[in-house]
Structure formats: structure tokens, C-alpha cells
């Protein structure tokens, strides 16, 4: 019984809690964070349950109001959406747990709106993943975006301006997507994704279809921070509060990448995408330029959050490059990287939150080896996440790169292979730079002995999610064969 309605329950959980939080928040302020944790925890449990039930008995389609498509709107819980839902809800749960102590510090008095907005954003993200309707997707896209703009604005002094810039670029992107949907609707007369996938091959040569595809890729590309439409991202992630960055960075761009997967591989199919122009190659090239650009810019940063933001630009490139390869290995690599990057980035942004909590800054040039003494567990987690970002075995990051590399070789695409390898090296440059500072005494400094620091680790509620994610990277690394086995089954061709 519950299985068939599960997709709706996940979305409804967030609706319910986004109402509950303001109500309770007016009465008892200290309840808002536990409520948000409960909400996201419930959603995470449901998504784990849903994914298991997907593995056992196949996709779940839920028709709202009992109206079957193409008349009604449906939620589709299939392999692709189920996987994404699982990843984002579990990560969001951990991030919200982590925000307990740092939230009141970074945005005092704004806890209630923060958590209510976080629930709304999660509603939007889950809706985007689950919906089986292209216009419905636009609505959820805007729900999540509006909530994200507001979340980002709850931050440092510069945050509202960064949020406004994101709003303008993001809304323009969303509108282009809507225009694309309009084109497709005029051609096919349907908005349902499954319906449309069946109809599109009849209109393969239609200019309107190609124009629609380009408009959608550009529109979603803005949200996914696909190069060169990434301009909004660094400022937004840097000036937002730590918990916001930790929430939005691992989730927001991934969900946008999801719809690119859905459109390019499931609705259009790769033959149709490339029917008129080699669009998949263009997307792939943009992604690889983004990978290199993001990595190089990350090296140039001295502020850890900004560095992580640029690294996000680069990492999203891996995902989209894997998509553009359109072969099973590239697909599995890209999806595995969705999981890996969500875990790594959430972990790294949490660490930057931990440091901001204790040190009040995340300026890399001020890091020194006292950190190792003061925050041994945070730094151990950082080391694991950093090594995984560089892509060394047996950590998770290695395996997504391995599958991506196999995908590029399969297609004989040596340029992309070189990009993956070079960017791994660039990653190594900007992460080992920090590791060097944290684990070694500064050779030019006067003091001979390592700087003394009393152990001053962050509280358990912050440390536990950080370490769980870091441990997760090791577990994912060793279990990747199981995960990739599932992912390869999802591949549509």
C-alpha cells in the first residue's frame, strides 16, 4: 500500500514540515532545528525504503488524484529519480543535523525562516526529481530556486547581492527552460515525460524540437552551473552561511544535472539529441572546459569556501561530461560521481563550517599545524575527503573517475580522458596545499616546535555528520561494484 504512494509521501513530508516549523517556531524557538531534522530524517527513511522497494519490484508511478497521464500529473519513482532522491535526502538530513550549533552562530534569530526555507527547498528538489511532467518540473524548479535564493541571502553582508545575481540569472534560465517546454508542447501536444519520449522520434528533424532542446539545455545549464553559465555560483556559495552552502552545494547543481540526464538520455535519447547538431559533444566540451576552468580558479583562491565553490564548478563538469559520453560506463561514472561529489562536498563544506565555528574564518593562508592538534577528527575527515577529491584509490572519488575514464576510452575520446587526468592533478595541487599547511610546521616561521594547540574539537552534533560522510567515502569506495551494478541497470539504451 505504502509503496504505491511513496513518491507523494516524500514530497508531502517536506510540505508538512515547512508548515509545522513556522507554527512551532512562534511558540518554541528551540524546536525548529529538531523538527527540520525529523522532517528530513523521515524523508531520508522513506527514500531508503523506496529505493529498496524499487530494487525489489521495479518503478513506482503515482497518479495525482487518480488521473492517469497524459491528462493527470504523475510522480515517477524509477531508478534514476530514486537514486537522486536517496542521495539528496540522506545528505540533507546530515547537513541539517550538523547545523544545530553553527546555525544560531551564523544567523542568530533567523533559525525559523532558515529551516522553513530549507524544507521548502528540499520540497522543490524532491519534486523536480520525482515529477513525470515537464511543466510540473518547472514549478518545482522555481519553488526550489526561490527557497535557495532566500537561503543564500541569509548569510554574510554580501549575501543578498550574490543571491540577487543568482536570482536574475537563475530565473532567466528557468524561463528559457519554460520556453523550450512550450516548443515541445506545440510539437507533441503532451507534457508527460514518458509520453513525450514515445512521440519525439516522429519529429526528429523538426527545428522546433532541436530549438527546444537547446533552450532546455541552456536553461538547465544555468542551474547546473555548466560552464560558461556558472557565474552565479562562486559568490553565492561563498557568502551564504556555512549550513546553506553545505545544503545547496551538494544538492542544487546535482538536481539540475538530473534533468539533463532525464532530457538527453531518457526523453530524447542520444540519437535524437545528435540528430541535427552534435549537441552531446558540445555539452561535453563545455563540461571539460568547465572542469579545467574550475580547477584552475580553485587553485587561485585563498578562501576555503570560495575554493570549494570553484571546485564544485569543476566537479559538476565531470557529471555532465559522463552524461555526454552516453555510454554505460560514462553514465555509471557520472551517477557515481553524483553520489561521491554530494558526499565529498557536503563533508568539505561542513568542515569549513567547523573551522568557521571555532576559528571564525576559513582563510587558507592563515591555516597552520596547530589545527591538527586542535581539531584532529575534523582534519582527519578533511584528509579523507581531499584524497577522495583528488581521486586516489580506494576512496570513492577514484572509482567515479575510473568509470568516466573507461567511458572516454570506450568512445575513443582522448581529449576528455586527458581532461580527467589533468584535472585530478590540479585537484591534488589545491588540496595538498592545505594538507601541507595543516600537517606540517611552517618552515619559514621562527618557532622550532610545532605550534601548540589544546584540543578544541567541535561538538558531537557537528563532528558526527562530518565523520559519517568521511567514513561513507571509504565505504562507497569499497562497495562501488554493488552501486555501479545497480546504476548500469538504469542505463536506458
Amino acid at each position, binding site marked *: 500500500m505504502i509503496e504505491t504512494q511513496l513518491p507523494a509521501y516524500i514530497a508531502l513530508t517536506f510540505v508538512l514540515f515547512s508548515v509545522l516549523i513556522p507554527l512551532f517556531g512562534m511558540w518554541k524557538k528551540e524546536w525548529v532545528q529538531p523538527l527540520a531534522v525529523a522532517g528530513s530524517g523521515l524523508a531520508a527513511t522513506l527514500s531508503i525504503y523506496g529505493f529498496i522497494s524499487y530494487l525489489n519490484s521495479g518503478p513506482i508511478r503515482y497518479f495525482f488524484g487518480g488521473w492517469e497521464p497524459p491528462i493527470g500529473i504523475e510522480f515517477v519513482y524509477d531508478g534514476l529519480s530514486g537514486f537522486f532522491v536517496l542521495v539528496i535526502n540522506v545528505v540533507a538530513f546530515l547537513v541539517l543535523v550538523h547545523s544545530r550549533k553553527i546555525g544560531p552562530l551564523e544567523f542568530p534569530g533567523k533559525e525559523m525562516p532558515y529551516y522553513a526555507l530549507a524544507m521548502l527547498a528540499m520540497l522543490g528538489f524532491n519534486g523536480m526529481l520525482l515529477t513525470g511532467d515537464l*511543466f510540473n518540473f*518547472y*514549478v518545482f524548479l*522555481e519553488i526550489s530556486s*526561490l527557497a535557495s*535564493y*532566500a537561503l543564500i*541571502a541569509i548569510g554574510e*553582508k*554580501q549575501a*543578498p*547581492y550574490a*543571491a*540577487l545575481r543568482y*536570482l*536574475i540569472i537563475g*530565473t*532567466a534560465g528557468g*524561463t528559457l527552460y*519554460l*520556453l523550450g517546454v*512550450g516548443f515541445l*508542447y*506545440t510539437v507533441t501536444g503532451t*507534457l508527460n515525460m514518458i509520453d513525450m519520449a514515445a512521440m519525439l522520434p516522429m519529429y526528429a528533424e523538426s527545428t522546433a524540437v532541436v530549438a527546444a532542446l537547446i533552450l532546455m539545455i541552456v536553461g538547465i545549464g544555468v542551474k547546473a552551473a555548466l560552464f560558461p553559465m556558472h557565474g552565479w555560483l562562486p559568490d553565492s556559495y561563498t557568502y551564504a552561511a556555512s549550513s546553506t552552502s553545505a545544503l545547496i552545494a551538494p544538492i542544487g547543481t546535482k538536481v539540475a544535472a538530473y534533468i539533463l540526464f532525464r532530457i538527453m538520455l531518457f526523453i530524447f535519447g542520444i540519437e535524437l539529441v545528435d540528430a541535427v547538431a552534435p549537441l552531446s559533444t558540445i555539452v561535453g566540451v563545455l563540461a571539460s572546459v568547465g572542469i579545467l576552468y574550475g580547477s584552475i580558479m580553485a587553485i587561485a583562491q585563498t578562501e576555503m569556501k570560495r575554493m570549494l565553490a570553484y571546485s564544485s564548478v569543476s566537479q559538476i563538469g565531470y557529471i555532465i561530461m559522463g552524461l555526454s559520453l552516453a555510454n554505460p560506463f560514462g553514465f555509471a561514472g557520472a551517477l557515481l560521481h553524483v553520489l561521491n561529489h554530494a558526499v565529498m562536498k557536503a563533508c568539505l563544506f561542513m568542515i569549513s563550517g567547523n573551522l568557521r565555528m571555532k576559528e571564525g574564518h576559513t582563510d587558507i593562508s592563515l591555516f597552520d599545524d596547530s589545527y591538527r592538534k586542535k581539531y584532529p577528527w575534523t582534519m582527519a575527515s578533511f584528509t579523507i575527503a581531499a584524497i577522495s577529491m583528488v581521486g586516489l584509490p580506494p576512496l570513492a572519488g577514484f572509482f567515479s573517475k575510473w568509470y568516466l575514464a573507461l567511458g572516454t576510452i570506450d568512445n575513443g575520446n582522448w581529449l576528455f580522458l586527458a581532461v580527467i587526468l589533468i584535472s585530478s592533478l590540479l585537484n591534488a595541487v589545491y588540496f595538498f596545499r592545505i594538507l601541507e599547511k595543516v600537517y606540517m610546521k611552517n618552515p619559514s616561521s621562527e618557532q622550532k616546535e610545532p605550534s601548540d594547540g589544546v584540543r578544541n574539537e567541535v561538538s558531537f552534533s557537528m563532528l558526527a555528520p562530518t565523520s559519517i560522510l568521511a567514513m561513507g567515502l571509504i565505504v562507497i569506495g569499497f562497495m562501488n561494484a554493488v552501486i555501479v551494478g545497480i546504476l548500469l541497470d538504469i542505463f536506458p539504451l
Partner: protein
Amino acid sequence: MIDFFLGHYAYWFTVILLCVGLYGILFKKNLIKKTIGLSIFQVSVVLFFVSIASKWDATVTVRDSSIPVDQVANYLNPLPHTLMLTAIVVGVATLGVAFTLLIAIYNRYGTIDEQELLDEIQ
């Protein structure tokens, strides 16, 4: 050729509006003007949806006993219009958030000119 332009005049207006909106977003320095450009941009897409659903000599989708149900050409397609109701709501909400942010920016920096803001931040 002329037919092509005249026959699609509604779309050409859409395109012109789209360009006006885009111009506002890209080139206006005043953030409120930028936001207005954004709004025009959105409205152009709304108008596009409305125009694709329009038909000559057709009526709204309420059953009229004088027109048989199977004469589809005589009824309008209601879906694009309803979709646009939602899109308009989204647009209004976006404007609301944008103006809230603008107020916050004005309170913090005392200006809403992009160039001055950038100077201020750096």
C-alpha cells in the same frame, strides 16, 4: 516571405519582448531596472504560451450544446492558459523575493546601482 512574417505576428511580438527583457537583464546597471527586464522576459514566454493556444472561431472549453463535442477545432485548448496561471504566480513570487533582496541590499549598502555595489564590495 511576407506571409511568414505576418502569419506569425504574435510570435514576433513575443520575440521582440524577449529581446527587450534580455536587454534589460544584461545592460541595465540599476538593479530595479534589471528586475523589470527579468519580468518582461518572463511575460514574453507567458504570452507565447497564450498565443499558441489561440484559435480563430473557437470558444472556451465549456460544453456548448450548439457545438458537438467531437468538433475539436471549435474549442480552445485550455491547458496552456492554465499552465500560465501557475507561471504568472511563479513570476510574482520571483519579483517578491527579488524586491525583498533589493531592500536588503539597499539597507546594507545604500545603493542599488550595480557598479557602485561592486566598488563597495571590493
